[in-house]
């Protein structure tokens, strides 16, 4: 089967607007969008720029807007798009460097603000691991699946209008540590996400949850952070607010 793949061609150094180009690619039932892009670059047009690495939905390199939804090119099969025409665009809301290659610097800079590492005032045990109950592990299991592919932040209309908004990926990262029973910097992180560019910008549109290729409950996590901030302000901060992933409930 032949499909037409439509891609914007753009170089930030020389172009003001993208020009669209169409390629015809022969696909099998197994061909993924990434396979199709790879075949364009190696067989038709070496100038097409896009990122890829693991092919298996774990590295987060190939997040793109494919037929109107943010997804990973590597685990999206062309046949599943149910269409002879496939449009592939760079992640919306990200500055474009070239073709499908976006600038990740602002995205990773926001992640770094969240203190994306364990902070604790408890001493390291002399022998063995810190204990954590299965219940407590499951509180972070869903958020820890994030692969930083940017599909969520890029799907967020607030992010489109306000580039300073931390966005769902960074806020989920904060949530992952806030909910970690081993971490004691809850207040510090709530102070970070409770600012003007943090959780209160979220309008609960749920695009970030619906476009996450790993099933991370981004909007729910942001809501949980909001509740935690309010409970802390009311002096009820020790109440655990947990997002129940459907498969865990």
């Amino acid at each position, binding site marked *: 089967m032949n499909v037409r793949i439509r891609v914007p061609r753009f170089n930030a150094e020389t172009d003001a607007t993208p020009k669209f180009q169409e390629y015809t690619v022969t696909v099998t039932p197994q061909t993924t969008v990434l396979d199709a892009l790879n075949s364009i670059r190696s067989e038709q047009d070496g100038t097409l720029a896009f990122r890829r690495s693991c092919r298996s939905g774990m590295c987060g390199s190939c997040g793109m807007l494919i037929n109107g939804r943010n997804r990973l090119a590597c685990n999206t099969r062309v046949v599943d798009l149910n269409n002879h025409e496939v449009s592939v665009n760079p992640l919306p809301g990200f500055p474009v460097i070239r073709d499908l290659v976006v600038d990740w610097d602002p995205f990773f800079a926001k992640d770094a603000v969240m203190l994306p*590492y364990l902070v604790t005032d408890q001493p390291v045990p002399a022998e063995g691991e810190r204990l954590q109950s299965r219940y407590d592990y499951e509180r972070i299991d869903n958020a*820890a699946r994030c692969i930083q592919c940017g599909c969520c932040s890029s799907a967020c209309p607030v992010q489109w209008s306000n580039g300073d908004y931390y966005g769902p990926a960074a806020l989920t990262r904060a949530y992952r540590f806030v909910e970690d029973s081993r971490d004691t910097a809850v207040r510090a992180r709530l102070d970070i996400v409770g600012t003007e560019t943090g959780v209160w910008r979220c309008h609960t549109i749920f695009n970030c949850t619906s476009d996450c290729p790993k099933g991370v409950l981004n909007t729910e996590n942001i809501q949980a952070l909001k509740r935690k901030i309010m409970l802390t302000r009311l002096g009820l901060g020790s109440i655990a607010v947990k997002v129940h992933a459907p498969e865990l409930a």
Partner: protein
Amino acid sequence: MIQHDVLIVGSGIAGMRCALEIKRQQPTADVALVTKLYPTRAPSVIEREGIAAALGNVRFDETGALVPSRGDRTFDSPAQHAADTLKYAEGLADPAAVQLLCEQAPKAVYELEHMGTPFSRTAEGRIAQRAGWGHTQPRVAYAADRTGHAITHTLYGELIRFGIKVYPEWYVLSLAHSANRAQGVVALDIRSGETVAFQAKATVLATGSYGRIFGRTNDTQSSTGDGLALAYRAGLPLQDVELVQFHPLGLYSTGFVISERILLDGAHLLNGKRERVLKRYAKELELAPLAVISAAIEHAIAAGDGAGEHKDHVWLDVRHLPANHLREHYPHLLEYAADYLGINPLEQLVPVLPTAAATLGGIPTNLDGAVLDAQQQPVAGLYAVGACASNGVNGANLLPGNALLSAVVFGRRTGAAIAAQLKAAPAHGDFPADALQQALAEVEALLHQQGDMRAGAVRERLLATMSAACGPLRQSELLTQHLGSLHELRAEFNRIALDDKGHVYNAELVEALELSRMLDWGEAIIAGALAREESRGVHSRSEYAAPSTAQHTLTTRQTDGTPQVSHVAAPDMPAVQA
């Protein structure tokens, strides 16, 4: 020129763990990582199975079921872990290296936990462990089925905590060395197209595995052995690079590995006639060694017993296993089958065939990670860690969970050795004057090369050649023939012309640079396979059924570009204790 005390090439688990240890021991050290990806995108994230360590959190009871052991080490110990590893390595591992690996394992895993790695938990709240193929006790610690991802993201957080500088999306072109000392690297900024010299007192290669040179592989598109190329082109030897582990359960169309644990759980392999594939090849059926299963599948397909329209694969049958068990323990199988084949393994057969799963050779190092030259002497200022290094722990086969473990243990140990060196280290040396010019010349020449071939076509042929020559079953005739094909491909590379002559994010250029390097060290794999006249572990030669003397192959690039293989005796195995 950019200057740092230590420059680490690669940002996977080994590279990040090494950087972190240097910073922990020597907080004033100026450490930087340079990577062609971003740290959270490193190929380490695809490592699903886990990290092996004798923590003793669970054990097998008399019936073989997992029961809590609560950290009691009477049932498992680092010595037992080492014994399993040595047995599996079939005489080619260095017992001292393996002993070090297994003794350091519990501490290394606990440290990862203390950093916040979200490990799965036992009912007692300890790090969860499960059975692993070839392990006598359940000692593979895991974080769901994304252990590599969990550790990578944790270590990335540590980079941020320590403020360690990362240069993302830089492709390292060459090693700079002068006065018998590594002086840093020259690298291409993929984003701007600029070529820049990086000077360092210590240079660490942490570029991961090299499985991308095979057509069907579990490895990522980035696992192109760039570190091997850096060493090989600098005249340093590569060790045992012909040793590549093939996994029988590679998903048709992508080559992704489905965990071999599913065979222990009772999955069947069926041929085109829906008969058990292994009935004719192994009395243990699906519990035979993985190399035997891989070979049996290849034989069955060659004999015309393959399944499907092209009779080019076999079936993995899990339909008789409990659905809940599969959902809980093999989410990757269900996900892969749905995403890449559109099938449901609970009701349908899954097409599989052997795939390159792990590369066992690499740049020879000592146990402090110092790279060894052809005379087995350390090269001053040059280190290698993780899957690109060959320090004696792998031998001729690799136990599940030991790859992540050696990345962490030797990343840490090498970091400590570098930190100690830095305390005594003088100022930066003399960066070779022509290094930058030479690297720049390579890039410009490639950009402006005229020709009638596409880089993509040459790459496809290289991958096909490597798969044909160095698959699970190897023959002298084919190896010799394909050594010749590789010569032809090198000549064809000189006829390629790039479409993209630009400098900003020229991905075609980077892929062509990777290809030119794979064409170099790919030859070392075939030459090594040809020189290894035996069948041992993952290496199976049709003419030689049994293992010969235990020795490593060391392959160096001669001045005319051809590989030369020499042999080094493997360290003796300790006497088996009664």
